[in-house]
Structure formats: structure tokens, C-alpha cells
């Protein structure tokens, strides 16, 4: 996992799955505290100190669920249920609107292969391989290879 820390965000690149993740400030802090030594209560306290505001434990669980979904943990966390599994909307209702800014957010993308990242040819354009065609079908028509539907 490659880690790059920006001013108020954190980027993670998973070389095994080729997924890149952008963690906002809250998610980044939680992720750094998830080092196998802190429990949820300790992470909650530490995050509260860092953000200088009261933090709900459910917020940490929300981040943990998200990390697990994105494959950012080495180990699988036991299934989350009950109050720990509140949705963002439920949590917002519980802690009030002011807490919305403190939600942990993770945005992920699948990093493409070179051929996927490059441009592609339209139908009937000459081609040499399937990956060159937007239709992903480079076929023989007459004596030429062209992009086919």
C-alpha cells in the first residue's frame, strides 16, 4: 500500500488490487489510528482530541465499515450490527446537522491498464487490436482490420 499525505486528505494506492483511494481528513485520521493497537473507544478519543470536537463512536464504526468495504484492512472485522451499523443519514440525525462536516469519506477508483487509459477508435476505423476500438472489436472486413460493432 502506497501512502501520500496531502494537506487535509490522504491518498492510498493498493498495488495488489490497483485501486486508489482518497480519504478525507476524518477518514485519514481514523485510518492512521487503526494500527492494531487502538480499540474503537481509544480511536474515538484520539480523533476528538485531533479535531478538537466531540466525536461519536458510531462515526468510527462508519469509517471502519467503509475501510473494510474498500479492502483497506489486512484483517476482516466481525460483522457490524445494531447501533454500530448506522447509516450516514441516521448518524446525522443522531448527532445533529453540525456534525455533517466530520463524516469520514472515502473515494475510490480502479486504476486503468494502459490500453484502457488511452484513446480509442470509432467504428470502421482501421485498427490492429481490440483494445484500440471503442467497441473493443477489431475485426477483418475485406483486406483490412477495422473497428466493428
Amino acid at each position, binding site marked *: 500500500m502506497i501512502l501520500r499525505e496531502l494537506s487535509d486528505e490522504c491518498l492510498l494506492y493498493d498495488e495488489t488490487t490497483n485501486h486508489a483511494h482518497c480519504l478525507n481528513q476524518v477518514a485519514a485520521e481514523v485510518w492512521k489510528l487503526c494500527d492494531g493497537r487502538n480499540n474503537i473507544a481509544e480511536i474515538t478519543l484520539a480523533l476528538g482530541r485531533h479535531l478538537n470536537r466531540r466525536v461519536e463512536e458510531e462515526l468510527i464504526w462508519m469509517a471502519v465499515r467503509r475501510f473494510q468495504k474498500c479492502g483497506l484492512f489486512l484483517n476482516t472485522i466481525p460483522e457490524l450490527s445494531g447501533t454500530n451499523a448506522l447509516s450516514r443519514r441516521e448518524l446525522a440525525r443522531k448527532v445533529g446537522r453540525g456534525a455533517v462536516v466530520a463524516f469520514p469519506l472515502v473515494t475510490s477508483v480502479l486504476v486503468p491498464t*494502459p490500453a484502457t487509459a488511452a484513446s480509442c477508435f470509432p467504428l470502421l476505423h482501421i485498427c490492429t487490436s481490440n483494445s484500440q476500438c471503442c467497441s473493443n472489436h477489431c475485426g477483418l472486413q475485406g483486406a483490412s482490420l477495422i473497428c466493428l460493432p
Partner: protein
Amino acid sequence: MEKLDRLGWVAGLTFTTFGVRIGVRVTSTELLDLASSVFPAGSKVSASRTVERLYSVVGGSTRGGDSGRRFFLLYGNVARLTRTLNSQELYEIWQSDMDFYIAQRAPRKLFVHAGVVAWKGHAIVIPGRSHSGKTTLVKAFLQAGATYYSDEFAVFDERGRVHPFPRPLSVRTLNTTRKITPEELGSLPGTGPIPTGLIMLTHYDAGVRWRPRQTSSGRAILGLLANTLAARRQPEGALATLEQVASGAQVLQGTRGEARETVESIVYHWGKKV
């Protein structure tokens, strides 16, 4: 390769482009003129005899297309890339393959699939997949007075500056692609590296009004990374470069409608600040 080597090669050249050494050998000297035009602007003839990729071009007559019915054969290393009577087809296949190779292998440059124009000395970078409307947007920017940098790749150096990669614009219609030079649109190609001023994470959707929201550097880096050719091969370097790119840039995200309205809005709101 041995079979190819035995053909009657009459001339050859080595070019260095974006730090990649590419060789060309031909069976007719007039094909060297075609080779020179295939390489990107700024390519230099090199004395090196070691190359990373070798193009072998056989036969044909570059004058008059199919007169004499001699086929052109183009090989990239040992793989045959095309066999055609048409020099324009040969040119397009060759250029496409070469650009793709350079974009993956350039040692000190990062190639991101994006359109790039310059406005008041700052680059506007529009990353995106094919059919996301990049070329239409680039074309509209050029018609509004921007300087042309690229329709295909944003070429970033380690300091995050954008270098020109001014191939003609590939304007798609339903079934064909038409090449347009920036000069035809009243613009000129850029000449040197410039810092990135604006990153537009957008795609076209008919009838939508451009109402962008500012987004973070991290999201911009993800948007660029999702269109970076060498991202899987060198993720650490790619992230470091893209961090430099995004650090000084404004980032706008949103679906756009008509290109002209979007460009007018950008020029009015963002263009005044630079």
C-alpha cells in the same frame, strides 16, 4: 526478427522523444520523410544504435497512394502492425502505436489521457476517457482564444508542469475521425512547459447546464490517476507527480452541457483570476 533483418534496408534513423529512443529502418529513402513526420514535435535525431522500439517499414510508394499496387508493411519490433496500400493509413497506425508506446515508457514524464489548453500562461487540463467530450471542449477553448497543448495527452514533468504534445485534434463524427490543426481554429500550439491552473473533472451530457463545484486536490489526483497510462507500472512516481500538478490548481467537477457555454463560463469566472 532474423527474417526481418534480412530484408534490404537502405536507411535508418534513431530518434529520441520524451527520453525514449526509437529506431526506424526503411526499404526506401523516401519513407524516412514520412518517419520524420510521424514523430512528435521536439523529437531529436540520436547517434545511439541501441533503441527501445524499432519500427521497420517496407515497400510502398509514398507518392500517389496505390500506384503500382505496392503494399506498405509496418512492423513494431517483430509484430506486424499493418499491411496497407494507403500511406495515410500507415501514418495513422504508426503514429497511434508510437504515441501509445511513448506514453507508457517516457522515463521522466507522466502521460495522462487528457485535453490541454493554455489560458494566460496556465494550463487547463481536462482528463477523461474517450467519448467524454474532451476534444469538443478543447476545440471550443481554442475558438475562444486559448493556446493548444494537446488533444490526447497531458504530459507532466516531475515539477507538475504541462508540456505540449500538439498532435492535430481528432474530431470524431459518427463513423469517421477528422484531423484538425489548431491553426485551422485560429489558435497556435504551445511551445514550453506551463503550470496547471485548472483541472476540469467533467463529461458531456446533452441538455445539462454547467454548474461545477470546487473539489479537493485528492479528488483531482484520483481523476488524473484514472487516466494515467503508466499508473500501474509506476504508481509511486505517478502519485508524486500528480500531487505537484494538483497543488497549485483549482479543481472543478461537474457534468457539462454545450461546450461553448462551458468555455464562456470558465473564461468569465476562472479566466479573470489568473
